[in-house]
């Protein structure tokens, strides 16, 4: 296992993050994050809440420009936002947001094929057929194409979000909690689908998940964030031998360990 500090980006790494830092005012959301993912591999990001997982995702997709450090995609530096390279890679990236962020004013199928219609100038007829195919892929009824996001349940919205993320056949897929709030059967189906996409299309997938079983058994690589810093990264096969206290606690869910909850007086009374 290579310690995180020495994990400098290599030329052949498809996604390479080096010494990434991002602050919001006085809050250090991310500090000194370095990791890499080879092309076509999958990585799960785990970590307690407020660890900086979603901020890292938004840096990767180009919504936030890092304060320090670099992000390289296929050897191209995309650390600054608002330029052509960054825009090119944004179009090659599909993202599912934590709260889906579906467009409330548009129908489901328009949501899914939005960038195909607007950026790639696909005809609405073709786009709609494509959207219906994708709906089938995520296990939704084709009839839901004409609904509005507000008509859907939380789990259905999540799947529409996933369909939107994969609609452009992206090279990079960033999924912020794709199976949160889904039942075990459905979440299994979604994970199978993500694995199949990675395998058949060679898509590089980074997924944030709170499901340790999924993180361990469905992903090739793992990154563990805590309090804005990277605690551990490496192949999931090496988890057992990692000997990392944060990782061990995260995987077991124990209350004993370096990850502490900020408990107030009232919680203490509640549990007393």
């Amino acid at each position, binding site marked *: 296992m290579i310690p995180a500090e020495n994990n400098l980006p290599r030329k052949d790494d498809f996604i390479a993050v080096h010494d990434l830092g991002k602050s919001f005012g006085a809050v250090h959301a991310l500090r000194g994050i370095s990791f890499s993912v080879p092309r076509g591999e999958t990585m799960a990001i785990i970590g307690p809440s407020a660890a900086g997982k979603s901020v890292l995702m*938004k840096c990767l*997709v*180009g*919504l936030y420009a890092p304060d320090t450090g670099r992000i390289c995609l296929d050897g191209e530096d995309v650390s600054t936002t608002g330029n052509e390279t960054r*825009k090119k890679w*944004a*179009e090659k*990236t599909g*993202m599912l*947001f934590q*709260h889906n*962020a*579906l*467009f*409330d*004013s*548009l*129908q489901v199928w328009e949501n899914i094929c*939005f*960038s195909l219609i*607007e*950026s790639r100038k696909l005809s609405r007829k073709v786009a709609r057929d494509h959207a219906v195919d994708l709906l089938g892929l995520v296990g939704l009824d084709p009839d839901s194409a*004409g609904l*509005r996001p*507000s*008509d859907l349940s939380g789990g259905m919205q999540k799947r529409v979000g996933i369909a*939107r993320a994969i609609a452009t056949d992206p090279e990079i897929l960033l999924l912020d909690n794709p199976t949160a709030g889904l039942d075990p059967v459905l979440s299994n189906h979604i994970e199978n689908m993500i694995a199949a996409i990675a395998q058949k299309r060679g898509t590089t997938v980074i997924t944030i998940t709170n499901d340790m079983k999924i993180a361990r058994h469905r992903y090739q690589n793992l990154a563990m964030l805590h309090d804005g810093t990277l605690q551990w990264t490496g192949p999931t096969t090496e988890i057992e031998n990692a000997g990392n206290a944060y990782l061990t606690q995260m995987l077991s869910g124990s209350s004993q360990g370096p990850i502490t909850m900020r408990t107030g007086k009232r919680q203490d009374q509640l549990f007393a």
Partner: protein
Amino acid sequence: MTDIAKLPPGPLGSSSQRAVIWARKNLFNSWFNSILTLGSIAALFWIIPPMIEWGITNATLTPSIEACREVTGACWGFVNANLRLILFGTYPYDEQWRPLLAMVVLVGIIIGSLGAVPYAGMRKWIIPMWLVGIPVIAILMWGGVLGLTYVQNSYWGGLPLTLILSSIGIIFAFPLGLLLALGRQSSMPAIKTLSVVYIEIIRGVPLITVLFMASVMFPLFLPEGVTIDKLLRAQIGIILFTAAYLAEVFRGGLQAVPNGQFEAGNSLGLSYWQSMRLIILPQAMRLVIPPTVGSFISMFKDTTLVVIIGLFDLLNTVKLALRSDPAWTRYYVEGYAFAAAIFFLFCYSMARYAAYLEKELRKGEQR
């Protein structure tokens, strides 16, 4: 425990029985409500019959002062006799078909555009309609071409003036307000500061001041020999004023759209303007329909303030008619009631349209 006997009966019984039940439930369900109900009925009996007597039974429409002196009620004859003066102001009498036609065209485009707003496929016709309509209105009002005699705009007045000032005001203030709202949210400090300063200064002064500045102060800053038309200055004043208020209304709507929507658009590779046009604004605009129409209504009524710079809008032409003959002067209640009725007609239509638009757009959302 539910006492079934006390539950109101279903839609059984005759309509009069149901009316009694309804009244008992809604008007006389407590001693306090009973007093209020009886008091309101008494007040209506006290107000309405005299009003009908004054306004209809004892009133006259005959356009002569003699007829008016004979009746005890309203002298609608004043309005009847001065209708053209009130509606068209000092526009040359023989040419008054032109402002009438211009008004018909204007109301036509307004209804056409408002009707097109709820339907995405029709919206693209709104701008062409105005691009054709405005020159037609301008030609009708000004003339000077196509064999129409030239009418200086200092002769314009009455309802056409009110409608032109407010509709042109709305169609220019709307995009300007939108730009200001976006500017205020901009991450570029210069644009942000400029927008904030503009909005706060304009909102900090009364419209009368803006109009007065536009008409009296502004020309002092212009170089010798350059004059900008008085009507145009008033129009610009109204646009600038309304835009500042609309900007704050729009900003409220923009803030109500979750940031995630913008991020999602951005992550799909959309530019700022694409995200705004396709994702954020449709949601924000739907949210701000009620306050936007509120701004339009108050602006429509505020156009009456152009009187202070000597323009004859609908309210001022009533005054003009009252003064046209000293004998008419005492019938000011009738004159202002007529103007009020016209204002009410337009403002209430706007309010109804806003309610309709909200319903239409929500229907689209649930489709």
